[in-house]
Protein backbone atom coordinates (compact mmCIF):
# COMPACT_ATOMS: atom_id res chain seq x y z
CA UNK A 1 0.00 0.00 0.00
CA UNK A 2 1.10 3.57 -0.50
CA UNK A 3 2.50 5.37 2.50
CA UNK A 4 0.05 8.21 2.98
CA UNK A 5 -0.79 9.31 6.50
CA UNK A 6 -4.45 8.89 7.30
CA UNK A 7 -5.94 10.03 10.57
CA UNK A 8 -7.04 6.76 12.16
CA UNK A 9 -10.72 6.33 12.86
CA UNK A 10 -10.92 5.92 16.65
CA UNK A 11 -12.26 2.59 17.92
CA UNK A 12 -15.81 2.54 19.25
CA UNK A 13 -16.60 0.75 22.50
CA UNK A 14 -19.84 -1.30 22.74
CA UNK A 15 -21.41 1.40 24.91
CA UNK A 16 -20.45 4.13 22.45
CA UNK A 17 -21.74 1.99 19.60
CA UNK A 18 -25.10 1.74 21.36
CA UNK A 19 -25.22 5.54 21.70
CA UNK A 20 -24.37 6.06 18.03
CA UNK A 21 -26.93 3.50 16.91
CA UNK A 22 -29.59 5.17 19.07
CA UNK A 23 -28.62 8.56 17.70
CA UNK A 24 -29.11 7.21 14.19
CA UNK A 25 -32.63 6.22 15.21
CA UNK A 26 -31.93 2.51 14.83
CA UNK A 27 -33.38 -0.18 17.06
CA UNK A 28 -31.38 -3.34 16.55
CA UNK A 29 -31.74 -6.70 18.25
CA UNK A 30 -28.61 -8.27 19.82
CA UNK A 31 -27.85 -10.36 16.72
CA UNK A 32 -28.13 -7.33 14.42
CA UNK A 33 -25.98 -5.33 16.81
CA UNK A 34 -23.31 -8.06 16.77
CA UNK A 35 -23.35 -8.02 12.96
CA UNK A 36 -22.90 -4.25 12.98
CA UNK A 37 -19.92 -4.50 15.34
CA UNK A 38 -18.32 -7.01 12.95
CA UNK A 39 -19.07 -4.89 9.87
CA UNK A 40 -17.83 -1.71 11.52
CA UNK A 41 -14.51 -3.34 12.38
CA UNK A 42 -14.01 -4.03 8.69
CA UNK A 43 -15.21 -0.58 7.72
CA UNK A 44 -12.65 1.02 10.05
CA UNK A 45 -9.93 -0.83 8.14
CA UNK A 46 -11.24 0.60 4.85
CA UNK A 47 -11.55 4.13 6.24
CA UNK A 48 -7.92 3.93 7.31
CA UNK A 49 -6.86 3.51 3.68
CA UNK A 50 -8.35 6.84 2.59
CA UNK A 51 -6.08 9.88 3.01
CA UNK A 52 -7.51 12.85 4.84
CA UNK A 53 -4.48 15.15 5.03
CA UNK A 54 -5.41 17.26 2.01
CA UNK A 55 -4.99 21.01 1.57
CA UNK A 56 -8.03 22.96 2.71
CA UNK A 57 -8.34 24.60 -0.71
CA UNK A 58 -8.45 21.25 -2.43
CA UNK A 59 -11.69 20.61 -4.24
CA UNK A 60 -14.53 19.33 -2.08
CA UNK A 61 -15.58 16.81 -4.73
CA UNK A 62 -19.27 17.17 -3.98
CA UNK A 63 -20.36 19.90 -6.33
CA UNK A 64 -23.22 20.55 -8.66
CA UNK A 65 -23.87 22.87 -11.57
CA UNK A 66 -26.89 25.07 -11.91
CA UNK A 67 -28.35 25.49 -15.35
CA UNK A 68 -27.23 28.80 -16.91
CA UNK A 69 -29.45 31.81 -16.11
CA UNK A 70 -32.33 32.45 -18.47
CA UNK A 71 -31.56 34.75 -21.35
CA UNK A 72 -27.89 33.87 -21.72
CA UNK A 73 -26.50 32.32 -24.87
CA UNK A 74 -25.76 29.11 -23.00
CA UNK A 75 -29.30 28.81 -21.68
CA UNK A 76 -30.63 29.16 -25.22
CA UNK A 77 -28.24 26.46 -26.35
CA UNK A 78 -29.23 24.24 -23.43
CA UNK A 79 -32.96 24.74 -24.00
CA UNK A 80 -32.86 24.28 -27.76
CA UNK A 81 -32.41 20.77 -29.06
CA UNK A 82 -29.47 20.76 -31.45
CA UNK A 83 -29.96 19.22 -34.86
CA UNK A 84 -28.97 15.54 -34.69
CA UNK A 85 -26.18 16.12 -37.23
CA UNK A 86 -24.70 19.02 -35.23
CA UNK A 87 -25.08 17.18 -31.92
CA UNK A 88 -23.29 14.15 -33.31
CA UNK A 89 -20.44 16.26 -34.66
CA UNK A 90 -20.08 18.07 -31.35
CA UNK A 91 -20.08 14.99 -29.18
CA UNK A 92 -17.52 13.23 -31.35
CA UNK A 93 -15.31 16.28 -31.44
CA UNK A 94 -15.39 17.02 -27.74
CA UNK A 95 -15.15 13.53 -26.25
CA UNK A 96 -11.43 12.89 -26.85
CA UNK A 97 -10.58 16.44 -25.77
CA UNK A 98 -12.38 15.91 -22.47
CA UNK A 99 -10.58 12.62 -21.93
CA UNK A 100 -7.22 14.26 -22.63
CA UNK A 101 -8.00 17.12 -20.28
CA UNK A 102 -9.07 14.73 -17.55
CA UNK A 103 -5.88 12.75 -18.01
CA UNK A 104 -3.60 15.77 -17.98
CA UNK A 105 -4.60 17.19 -14.62
CA UNK A 106 -6.18 15.66 -11.53
CA UNK A 107 -9.89 16.12 -11.97
CA UNK A 108 -11.59 18.35 -9.48
CA UNK A 109 -14.96 16.83 -10.04
CA UNK A 110 -16.87 13.60 -9.70
CA UNK A 111 -17.90 11.73 -12.83
CA UNK A 112 -21.06 13.67 -13.47
CA UNK A 113 -19.25 16.97 -13.36
CA UNK A 114 -16.36 15.63 -15.37
CA UNK A 115 -18.91 14.41 -17.85
CA UNK A 116 -20.49 17.84 -17.88
CA UNK A 117 -17.15 19.36 -18.78
CA UNK A 118 -17.12 17.24 -21.90
CA UNK A 119 -19.84 19.30 -23.48
CA UNK A 120 -18.37 22.69 -22.53
CA UNK A 121 -17.80 25.11 -25.38
CA UNK A 122 -14.19 26.17 -26.11
CA UNK A 123 -15.08 29.67 -24.86
CA UNK A 124 -16.42 28.35 -21.58
CA UNK A 125 -13.44 26.02 -21.21
CA UNK A 126 -11.08 29.00 -21.59
CA UNK A 127 -13.07 30.98 -19.02
CA UNK A 128 -12.93 28.07 -16.60
CA UNK A 129 -9.17 27.77 -17.12
CA UNK A 130 -8.69 31.46 -16.39
CA UNK A 131 -10.83 31.19 -13.27
CA UNK A 132 -8.75 28.26 -12.02
CA UNK A 133 -5.55 30.25 -12.56
CA UNK A 134 -6.92 33.09 -10.47
Amino acid at each position, binding site marked *: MSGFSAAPTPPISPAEMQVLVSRAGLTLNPGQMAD*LVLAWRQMVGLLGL*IPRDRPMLDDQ*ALVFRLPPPAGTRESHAAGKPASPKRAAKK*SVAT*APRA*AKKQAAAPS*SAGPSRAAGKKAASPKRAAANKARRRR
Partner: protein
Amino acid sequence: MTSIPPWLTVAEAGRLIAAKKLSPVELAKALLARIKTVDPKINAFLTITEKPAMAAARAAERAVMAGTKHRLLGIPVAYKDIYETAGVPTTAHSRILQANIPKHDAEAVRRLREAGVVMLGKLATHEFAIGGPAFDLPWPPALNPWDTRRFTGGSSSGSGAAVAAGLALGALGSDTGGSIRLPASFCGIAGLKPTPGLVSRRGVIPLAPSLDTAGPMAWTAEDCAILLDALAGHDPADPASVPGPSVSYATAIATPLKGLRVGVLRHVYEHDMPAAPEVHVAMNRAAAVLKSLGCRVEDATLPPLQEYNAVGRVIITSEAYALHEANLRTRPSDYSRAFRIRVLSGALIRAAEYIAAQRRRTDLIALTAKAFQRFDVLISSPTLGAAPLLSEQRPDDGFARPLLTTLANVAAVPSMVVCAGFTAAGLPLGLEIMGPAWGDATVLRVGHHFERETGTRDRRPTI
Protein backbone atom coordinates in the same frame (compact mmCIF):
# COMPACT_ATOMS: atom_id res chain seq x y z
CA MET B 1 -40.64 -19.60 -40.81
CA THR B 2 -38.70 -22.67 -39.53
CA SER B 3 -38.11 -24.40 -36.17
CA ILE B 4 -36.06 -22.66 -33.46
CA PRO B 5 -32.32 -23.36 -33.50
CA PRO B 6 -31.02 -23.96 -29.97
CA TRP B 7 -28.79 -21.39 -28.26
CA LEU B 8 -29.39 -18.35 -30.43
CA THR B 9 -27.57 -15.09 -29.84
CA VAL B 10 -29.20 -11.68 -30.21
CA ALA B 11 -27.29 -11.11 -33.46
CA GLU B 12 -28.25 -14.48 -34.96
CA ALA B 13 -31.90 -14.23 -33.93
CA GLY B 14 -32.08 -10.66 -35.25
CA ARG B 15 -30.75 -11.75 -38.64
CA LEU B 16 -33.15 -14.71 -38.86
CA ILE B 17 -36.13 -12.59 -37.83
CA ALA B 18 -35.24 -9.87 -40.34
CA ALA B 19 -34.96 -12.50 -43.06
CA LYS B 20 -38.39 -13.83 -41.99
CA LYS B 21 -36.80 -17.22 -41.25
CA LEU B 22 -37.62 -17.06 -37.55
CA SER B 23 -40.96 -16.15 -36.02
CA PRO B 24 -40.80 -13.89 -32.94
CA VAL B 25 -43.92 -15.68 -31.68
CA GLU B 26 -42.32 -19.11 -32.04
CA LEU B 27 -39.11 -17.83 -30.44
CA ALA B 28 -40.97 -16.40 -27.45
CA LYS B 29 -42.99 -19.62 -27.07
CA ALA B 30 -39.81 -21.72 -27.18
CA LEU B 31 -38.09 -19.61 -24.53
CA LEU B 32 -41.12 -19.50 -22.24
CA ALA B 33 -41.28 -23.30 -22.46
CA ARG B 34 -37.56 -23.51 -21.67
CA ILE B 35 -38.01 -21.18 -18.70
CA LYS B 36 -40.71 -23.49 -17.33
CA THR B 37 -38.39 -26.49 -17.55
CA VAL B 38 -35.03 -25.00 -16.62
CA ASP B 39 -35.74 -22.07 -14.31
CA PRO B 40 -36.84 -24.20 -11.32
CA LYS B 41 -33.24 -25.53 -11.32
CA ILE B 42 -31.56 -22.10 -11.29
CA ASN B 43 -34.11 -19.61 -9.84
CA ALA B 44 -33.20 -16.89 -12.33
CA PHE B 45 -36.73 -15.46 -12.68
CA LEU B 46 -38.77 -13.75 -9.97
CA THR B 47 -41.66 -12.95 -12.33
CA ILE B 48 -42.49 -14.48 -15.70
CA THR B 49 -44.59 -12.17 -17.87
CA GLU B 50 -46.00 -14.78 -20.24
CA LYS B 51 -49.11 -12.95 -21.50
CA PRO B 52 -47.45 -9.57 -22.17
CA ALA B 53 -44.51 -11.42 -23.71
CA MET B 54 -46.75 -13.22 -26.19
CA ALA B 55 -48.59 -9.99 -27.00
CA ALA B 56 -45.25 -8.24 -27.64
CA ALA B 57 -44.06 -11.16 -29.76
CA ARG B 58 -47.21 -11.02 -31.89
CA ALA B 59 -46.77 -7.26 -32.32
CA ALA B 60 -43.13 -7.82 -33.33
CA GLU B 61 -44.19 -10.44 -35.84
CA ARG B 62 -46.73 -8.08 -37.39
CA ALA B 63 -44.05 -5.40 -37.60
CA VAL B 64 -41.60 -7.79 -39.28
CA MET B 65 -44.20 -8.85 -41.81
CA ALA B 66 -44.97 -5.18 -42.46
CA GLY B 67 -41.32 -4.61 -43.31
CA THR B 68 -40.09 -2.92 -40.11
CA LYS B 69 -36.37 -3.52 -39.53
CA HIS B 70 -34.55 -3.32 -36.21
CA ARG B 71 -31.92 -5.69 -34.88
CA LEU B 72 -33.82 -6.05 -31.60
CA LEU B 73 -37.28 -6.56 -33.08
CA GLY B 74 -38.77 -9.69 -31.50
CA ILE B 75 -35.68 -10.43 -29.36
CA PRO B 76 -36.63 -11.98 -25.98
CA VAL B 77 -34.97 -10.28 -23.01
CA ALA B 78 -35.45 -10.00 -19.26
CA TYR B 79 -34.63 -7.38 -16.65
CA LYS B 80 -32.94 -7.40 -13.27
CA ASP B 81 -35.74 -6.74 -10.80
CA ILE B 82 -34.50 -3.26 -9.93
CA TYR B 83 -35.61 -1.91 -13.35
CA GLU B 84 -39.08 -0.43 -13.03
CA THR B 85 -41.57 -2.02 -15.40
CA ALA B 86 -45.03 -0.50 -15.76
CA GLY B 87 -47.68 -2.78 -14.30
CA VAL B 88 -45.20 -5.55 -13.48
CA PRO B 89 -43.89 -6.12 -9.90
CA THR B 90 -40.45 -4.60 -9.27
CA THR B 91 -39.27 -5.90 -5.93
CA ALA B 92 -35.49 -5.42 -5.86
CA HIS B 93 -35.62 -9.00 -4.48
CA SER B 94 -36.70 -7.51 -1.16
CA ARG B 95 -39.59 -7.78 1.25
CA ILE B 96 -39.48 -4.00 1.43
CA LEU B 97 -40.80 -3.68 -2.16
CA GLN B 98 -42.69 -6.95 -2.37
CA ALA B 99 -45.91 -5.12 -3.31
CA ASN B 100 -44.32 -2.51 -5.57
CA ILE B 101 -45.94 -2.25 -8.99
CA PRO B 102 -44.52 0.77 -10.85
CA LYS B 103 -46.59 2.96 -13.12
CA HIS B 104 -43.79 3.67 -15.56
CA ASP B 105 -40.98 1.83 -17.29
CA ALA B 106 -37.37 2.65 -16.53
CA GLU B 107 -35.89 4.66 -19.40
CA ALA B 108 -33.68 1.73 -20.44
CA VAL B 109 -36.72 -0.57 -20.50
CA ARG B 110 -38.66 2.02 -22.50
CA ARG B 111 -35.87 2.28 -25.06
CA LEU B 112 -35.69 -1.48 -25.52
CA ARG B 113 -39.48 -1.76 -25.74
CA GLU B 114 -39.44 0.91 -28.43
CA ALA B 115 -36.83 -1.13 -30.30
CA GLY B 116 -39.28 -4.04 -30.30
CA VAL B 117 -37.87 -6.48 -27.72
CA VAL B 118 -40.08 -9.03 -25.98
CA MET B 119 -39.86 -8.87 -22.17
CA LEU B 120 -40.02 -12.38 -20.72
CA GLY B 121 -39.93 -11.35 -17.07
CA LYS B 122 -38.01 -9.97 -14.11
CA LEU B 123 -34.81 -11.49 -12.79
CA ALA B 124 -33.32 -12.29 -9.41
CA THR B 125 -30.82 -9.89 -7.91
CA HIS B 126 -29.04 -9.51 -4.62
CA GLU B 127 -31.38 -7.54 -2.37
CA PHE B 128 -31.32 -3.93 -3.60
CA ALA B 129 -28.30 -4.90 -5.70
CA ILE B 130 -26.08 -5.46 -2.63
CA GLY B 131 -27.42 -7.88 -0.02
CA GLY B 132 -26.87 -11.37 -1.29
CA PRO B 133 -26.85 -14.19 -1.98
CA ALA B 134 -29.39 -14.49 0.83
CA PHE B 135 -31.58 -17.34 2.02
CA ASP B 136 -33.73 -15.26 4.38
CA LEU B 137 -35.76 -13.52 1.66
CA PRO B 138 -39.09 -14.45 0.02
CA TRP B 139 -37.24 -15.76 -3.07
CA PRO B 140 -34.20 -18.06 -3.22
CA PRO B 141 -30.94 -16.83 -4.75
CA ALA B 142 -30.19 -17.62 -8.39
CA LEU B 143 -27.92 -20.62 -9.05
CA ASN B 144 -25.10 -20.99 -11.55
CA PRO B 145 -26.17 -22.95 -14.67
CA TRP B 146 -22.63 -24.40 -15.05
CA ASP B 147 -22.94 -26.05 -11.63
CA THR B 148 -26.03 -25.36 -9.57
CA ARG B 149 -24.11 -25.74 -6.30
CA ARG B 150 -22.16 -22.65 -7.23
CA PHE B 151 -22.58 -18.90 -6.91
CA THR B 152 -23.71 -16.90 -9.93
CA GLY B 153 -21.87 -13.79 -8.81
CA GLY B 154 -23.87 -10.68 -8.15
CA SER B 155 -25.69 -8.62 -7.84
CA SER B 156 -27.18 -9.14 -11.32
CA SER B 157 -27.38 -12.82 -10.44
CA GLY B 158 -30.56 -13.72 -12.32
CA SER B 159 -29.38 -11.84 -15.42
CA GLY B 160 -26.14 -13.86 -15.51
CA ALA B 161 -27.92 -17.17 -14.89
CA ALA B 162 -30.78 -16.56 -17.36
CA VAL B 163 -28.49 -15.62 -20.26
CA ALA B 164 -26.04 -18.47 -19.57
CA ALA B 165 -28.87 -21.00 -19.40
CA GLY B 166 -30.39 -19.74 -22.65
CA LEU B 167 -33.59 -18.50 -20.97
CA ALA B 168 -33.24 -15.00 -22.44
CA LEU B 169 -31.06 -13.79 -25.29
CA GLY B 170 -30.19 -10.60 -23.44
CA ALA B 171 -30.70 -9.01 -20.06
CA LEU B 172 -30.18 -5.76 -18.24
CA GLY B 173 -28.05 -5.55 -15.14
CA SER B 174 -26.68 -2.77 -12.99
CA ASP B 175 -23.14 -2.27 -11.77
CA THR B 176 -22.05 -0.25 -8.74
CA GLY B 177 -18.99 -2.28 -7.70
CA GLY B 178 -18.99 -5.13 -10.23
CA SER B 179 -22.60 -6.31 -10.32
CA ILE B 180 -22.75 -6.81 -14.10
CA ARG B 181 -19.21 -8.10 -14.54
CA LEU B 182 -19.03 -10.58 -11.65
CA PRO B 183 -22.05 -12.64 -12.79
CA ALA B 184 -20.82 -12.31 -16.37
CA SER B 185 -17.53 -13.86 -15.26
CA PHE B 186 -18.95 -16.66 -13.10
CA CYS B 187 -21.71 -17.51 -15.60
CA GLY B 188 -19.45 -17.35 -18.68
CA ILE B 189 -21.28 -14.59 -20.55
CA ALA B 190 -20.52 -11.02 -21.65
CA GLY B 191 -21.49 -7.96 -19.63
CA LEU B 192 -20.74 -4.27 -20.07
CA LYS B 193 -20.59 -1.60 -17.40
CA PRO B 194 -20.76 1.48 -19.64
CA THR B 195 -19.15 4.85 -19.05
CA PRO B 196 -21.24 6.62 -16.37
CA GLY B 197 -23.88 8.77 -18.03
CA LEU B 198 -24.06 6.78 -21.26
CA VAL B 199 -27.14 4.73 -20.26
CA SER B 200 -29.93 6.37 -18.29
CA ARG B 201 -30.57 5.13 -14.77
CA ARG B 202 -34.00 6.72 -14.53
CA GLY B 203 -36.36 4.15 -13.06
CA VAL B 204 -33.54 1.88 -11.89
CA ILE B 205 -33.75 1.50 -8.11
CA PRO B 206 -30.52 3.10 -6.90
CA LEU B 207 -27.87 1.63 -4.64
CA ALA B 208 -25.21 4.36 -4.60
CA PRO B 209 -26.07 7.05 -7.15
CA SER B 210 -22.54 8.37 -7.56
CA LEU B 211 -21.34 4.93 -8.69
CA ASP B 212 -24.44 3.23 -10.18
CA THR B 213 -24.46 2.32 -13.87
CA ALA B 214 -26.97 0.39 -15.96
CA GLY B 215 -25.85 -1.89 -18.77
CA PRO B 216 -26.41 -4.92 -21.00
CA MET B 217 -25.60 -8.59 -20.42
CA ALA B 218 -25.71 -11.19 -23.20
CA TRP B 219 -23.94 -14.25 -24.56
CA THR B 220 -21.49 -12.24 -26.68
CA ALA B 221 -19.83 -8.84 -26.81
CA GLU B 222 -21.54 -8.30 -30.16
CA ASP B 223 -24.94 -8.80 -28.50
CA CYS B 224 -23.99 -6.29 -25.80
CA ALA B 225 -23.06 -3.82 -28.56
CA ILE B 226 -26.42 -4.31 -30.30
CA LEU B 227 -28.24 -3.74 -27.00
CA LEU B 228 -26.08 -0.71 -26.19
CA ASP B 229 -27.00 0.88 -29.52
CA ALA B 230 -30.60 0.99 -28.29
CA LEU B 231 -29.80 1.84 -24.67
CA ALA B 232 -27.30 4.69 -25.07
CA GLY B 233 -28.57 8.22 -25.26
CA HIS B 234 -29.05 11.38 -23.28
CA ASP B 235 -31.87 11.46 -20.73
CA PRO B 236 -32.37 14.86 -19.06
CA ALA B 237 -34.25 13.14 -16.23
CA ASP B 238 -31.07 11.34 -15.09
CA PRO B 239 -28.75 14.02 -13.67
CA ALA B 240 -25.68 11.95 -14.57
CA SER B 241 -26.78 11.41 -18.17
CA VAL B 242 -24.80 13.11 -20.91
CA PRO B 243 -24.87 12.90 -24.70
CA GLY B 244 -22.24 10.27 -25.37
CA PRO B 245 -20.26 9.77 -28.56
CA SER B 246 -22.40 9.34 -31.62
CA VAL B 247 -21.35 5.89 -32.78
CA SER B 248 -22.95 2.60 -33.67
CA TYR B 249 -21.37 0.18 -31.23
CA ALA B 250 -22.48 -2.83 -33.24
CA THR B 251 -20.70 -1.44 -36.30
CA ALA B 252 -17.61 -0.18 -34.47
CA ILE B 253 -16.71 -3.61 -33.09
CA ALA B 254 -15.84 -4.94 -36.54
CA THR B 255 -12.65 -2.83 -36.82
CA PRO B 256 -9.58 -5.11 -36.39
CA LEU B 257 -7.40 -4.74 -33.28
CA LYS B 258 -4.07 -4.34 -35.08
CA GLY B 259 -1.91 -1.72 -33.35
CA LEU B 260 -4.12 -1.39 -30.26
CA ARG B 261 -2.13 -0.74 -27.08
CA VAL B 262 -3.14 -3.17 -24.33
CA GLY B 263 -1.97 -2.76 -20.72
CA VAL B 264 -2.06 -5.81 -18.44
CA LEU B 265 -2.87 -4.94 -14.81
CA ARG B 266 -0.84 -7.88 -13.59
CA HIS B 267 -0.27 -6.35 -10.15
CA VAL B 268 -4.01 -6.45 -9.44
CA TYR B 269 -4.41 -10.24 -9.62
CA GLU B 270 -0.81 -11.25 -8.83
CA HIS B 271 0.09 -8.90 -5.98
CA ASP B 272 -2.81 -6.77 -4.69
CA MET B 273 -5.24 -9.71 -4.47
CA PRO B 274 -3.45 -12.89 -5.54
CA ALA B 275 -5.78 -14.96 -7.69
CA ALA B 276 -5.90 -18.73 -8.24
CA PRO B 277 -3.22 -20.25 -10.53
CA GLU B 278 -5.87 -20.94 -13.18
CA VAL B 279 -6.54 -17.20 -13.40
CA HIS B 280 -2.84 -16.51 -14.07
CA VAL B 281 -2.85 -19.10 -16.84
CA ALA B 282 -6.04 -17.64 -18.35
CA MET B 283 -4.67 -14.09 -18.20
CA ASN B 284 -1.37 -15.09 -19.86
CA ARG B 285 -3.35 -16.86 -22.55
CA ALA B 286 -5.58 -13.81 -23.02
CA ALA B 287 -2.54 -11.55 -23.42
CA ALA B 288 -1.10 -13.97 -25.99
CA VAL B 289 -4.39 -14.03 -27.92
CA LEU B 290 -4.49 -10.23 -28.06
CA LYS B 291 -0.86 -10.17 -29.22
CA SER B 292 -1.74 -12.63 -31.97
CA LEU B 293 -4.48 -10.23 -33.06
CA GLY B 294 -1.89 -7.50 -33.59
CA CYS B 295 -2.14 -5.68 -30.23
CA ARG B 296 0.92 -4.29 -28.47
CA VAL B 297 0.73 -5.84 -25.01
CA GLU B 298 2.69 -4.54 -22.00
CA ASP B 299 2.25 -4.54 -18.24
CA ALA B 300 0.51 -1.49 -16.76
CA THR B 301 0.34 -0.13 -13.23
CA LEU B 302 -2.39 1.69 -11.32
CA PRO B 303 -2.61 2.58 -7.62
CA PRO B 304 -3.17 -0.50 -5.43
CA LEU B 305 -6.56 -2.16 -5.77
CA GLN B 306 -7.15 -1.73 -2.04
CA GLU B 307 -7.34 2.05 -2.47
CA TYR B 308 -10.06 1.80 -5.13
CA ASN B 309 -11.90 -0.74 -3.01
CA ALA B 310 -11.78 1.36 0.16
CA VAL B 311 -13.10 4.42 -1.67
CA GLY B 312 -15.80 2.39 -3.40
CA ARG B 313 -16.95 0.64 -0.23
CA VAL B 314 -17.16 3.84 1.83
CA ILE B 315 -19.17 5.60 -0.89
CA ILE B 316 -21.49 2.62 -1.50
CA THR B 317 -22.11 2.01 2.19
CA SER B 318 -22.75 5.69 2.95
CA GLU B 319 -25.07 6.29 0.02
CA ALA B 320 -26.94 2.98 0.37
CA TYR B 321 -27.49 3.64 4.08
CA ALA B 322 -28.81 7.12 3.34
CA LEU B 323 -31.31 5.67 0.85
CA HIS B 324 -32.48 2.95 3.24
CA GLU B 325 -32.26 4.74 6.59
CA ALA B 326 -36.00 5.23 7.00
CA ASN B 327 -36.74 1.53 6.46
CA LEU B 328 -33.75 0.41 8.52
CA ARG B 329 -35.13 2.46 11.41
CA THR B 330 -38.63 1.07 11.24
CA ARG B 331 -38.29 -2.48 9.86
CA PRO B 332 -34.65 -3.63 9.95
CA SER B 333 -35.67 -7.29 10.22
CA ASP B 334 -37.40 -7.13 6.83
CA TYR B 335 -33.99 -6.87 5.14
CA SER B 336 -31.72 -9.88 4.68
CA ARG B 337 -28.85 -10.31 7.13
CA ALA B 338 -26.40 -9.87 4.23
CA PHE B 339 -27.94 -6.51 3.37
CA ARG B 340 -27.76 -5.29 6.98
CA ILE B 341 -24.13 -6.37 7.34
CA ARG B 342 -23.15 -4.55 4.16
CA VAL B 343 -25.16 -1.38 4.70
CA LEU B 344 -25.80 -0.71 8.41
CA SER B 345 -22.27 0.53 9.10
CA GLY B 346 -23.17 3.50 6.90
CA ALA B 347 -24.94 4.83 10.01
CA LEU B 348 -21.55 5.28 11.67
CA ILE B 349 -19.52 6.76 8.80
CA ARG B 350 -18.89 10.44 9.49
CA ALA B 351 -19.53 13.11 6.85
CA ALA B 352 -15.81 13.97 6.78
CA GLU B 353 -14.99 10.34 6.00
CA TYR B 354 -17.48 10.19 3.15
CA ILE B 355 -16.13 13.47 1.71
CA ALA B 356 -12.58 12.12 2.02
CA ALA B 357 -13.63 9.10 -0.04
CA GLN B 358 -15.16 11.32 -2.73
CA ARG B 359 -12.06 13.50 -2.84
CA ARG B 360 -9.75 10.51 -3.11
CA ARG B 361 -11.97 9.24 -5.89
CA THR B 362 -11.18 12.32 -7.97
CA ASP B 363 -7.46 11.47 -7.65
CA LEU B 364 -8.07 7.87 -8.65
CA ILE B 365 -10.15 8.97 -11.67
CA ALA B 366 -7.28 11.20 -12.79
CA LEU B 367 -4.58 8.59 -12.16
CA THR B 368 -6.53 5.96 -14.08
CA ALA B 369 -7.17 8.38 -16.95
CA LYS B 370 -3.41 9.04 -17.07
CA ALA B 371 -2.78 5.33 -17.65
CA PHE B 372 -5.00 5.57 -20.71
CA GLN B 373 -2.55 8.01 -22.30
CA ARG B 374 -0.27 4.99 -22.76
CA PHE B 375 -2.89 2.34 -23.37
CA ASP B 376 -6.11 2.04 -25.37
CA VAL B 377 -7.44 -0.63 -23.02
CA LEU B 378 -6.36 -2.21 -19.75
CA ILE B 379 -7.05 -5.87 -19.03
CA SER B 380 -7.31 -7.71 -15.73
CA SER B 381 -9.10 -10.60 -14.11
CA PRO B 382 -12.55 -9.73 -12.73
CA THR B 383 -12.36 -12.44 -10.07
CA LEU B 384 -9.89 -14.43 -8.01
CA GLY B 385 -11.02 -17.70 -9.59
CA ALA B 386 -14.04 -19.54 -10.98
CA ALA B 387 -17.45 -19.46 -9.30
CA PRO B 388 -17.14 -20.56 -5.66
CA LEU B 389 -19.62 -22.85 -3.95
CA LEU B 390 -22.67 -20.94 -2.75
CA SER B 391 -22.07 -22.35 0.73
CA GLU B 392 -18.68 -20.58 0.81
CA GLN B 393 -20.21 -17.13 0.35
CA ARG B 394 -19.84 -14.78 3.30
CA PRO B 395 -22.32 -12.01 4.08
CA ASP B 396 -19.41 -9.62 4.66
CA ASP B 397 -17.83 -10.18 1.22
CA GLY B 398 -16.64 -6.93 -0.27
CA PHE B 399 -15.36 -5.75 3.11
CA ALA B 400 -13.14 -8.67 3.95
CA ARG B 401 -12.18 -9.46 0.35
CA PRO B 402 -11.89 -6.52 -2.08
CA LEU B 403 -13.68 -6.90 -5.38
CA LEU B 404 -11.34 -6.59 -8.35
CA THR B 405 -14.10 -5.00 -10.42
CA THR B 406 -14.70 -1.97 -8.17
CA LEU B 407 -11.66 -0.31 -9.73
CA ALA B 408 -13.59 0.57 -12.90
CA ASN B 409 -16.57 1.96 -10.95
CA VAL B 410 -14.40 4.23 -8.85
CA ALA B 411 -12.36 5.26 -11.91
CA ALA B 412 -15.56 6.04 -13.87
CA VAL B 413 -14.42 4.09 -16.92
CA PRO B 414 -16.25 1.58 -19.13
CA SER B 415 -15.45 -2.04 -18.42
CA MET B 416 -16.66 -5.32 -19.78
CA VAL B 417 -16.18 -8.98 -18.96
CA VAL B 418 -16.06 -11.69 -21.59
CA CYS B 419 -15.39 -15.39 -21.15
CA ALA B 420 -11.63 -16.03 -21.05
CA GLY B 421 -11.86 -19.80 -21.06
CA PHE B 422 -12.64 -22.64 -18.67
CA THR B 423 -11.05 -24.29 -15.67
CA ALA B 424 -10.13 -27.97 -15.66
CA ALA B 425 -13.48 -28.53 -13.90
CA GLY B 426 -15.33 -26.86 -16.77
CA LEU B 427 -16.19 -23.61 -15.01
CA PRO B 428 -15.91 -20.31 -16.90
CA LEU B 429 -13.26 -17.70 -16.14
CA GLY B 430 -13.60 -14.04 -17.12
CA LEU B 431 -11.43 -11.45 -18.81
CA GLU B 432 -12.04 -7.83 -17.80
CA ILE B 433 -11.40 -5.14 -20.44
CA MET B 434 -11.40 -1.48 -19.39
CA GLY B 435 -11.20 1.60 -21.59
CA PRO B 436 -10.95 5.35 -21.03
CA ALA B 437 -14.17 7.29 -20.41
CA TRP B 438 -16.29 7.10 -23.60
CA GLY B 439 -14.13 4.25 -24.89
CA ASP B 440 -17.07 1.82 -24.73
CA ALA B 441 -16.80 1.01 -28.44
CA THR B 442 -13.13 0.02 -28.09
CA VAL B 443 -13.86 -2.13 -25.05
CA LEU B 444 -16.64 -3.95 -26.91
CA ARG B 445 -14.41 -4.30 -29.97
CA VAL B 446 -11.65 -5.99 -27.99
CA GLY B 447 -14.21 -8.30 -26.34
CA HIS B 448 -15.72 -9.18 -29.70
CA HIS B 449 -12.43 -10.07 -31.41
CA PHE B 450 -11.20 -11.93 -28.34
CA GLU B 451 -14.35 -14.08 -28.27
CA ARG B 452 -14.06 -14.85 -31.98
CA GLU B 453 -10.41 -15.84 -31.68
CA THR B 454 -10.83 -18.07 -28.62
CA GLY B 455 -14.07 -19.83 -29.61
CA THR B 456 -15.34 -19.82 -26.03
CA ARG B 457 -18.83 -18.95 -27.30
CA ASP B 458 -19.33 -22.44 -28.72
CA ARG B 459 -19.49 -24.04 -25.27
CA ARG B 460 -22.75 -23.90 -23.29
CA PRO B 461 -23.69 -25.25 -19.86
CA THR B 462 -25.44 -28.61 -19.83
CA ILE B 463 -28.49 -27.87 -17.74
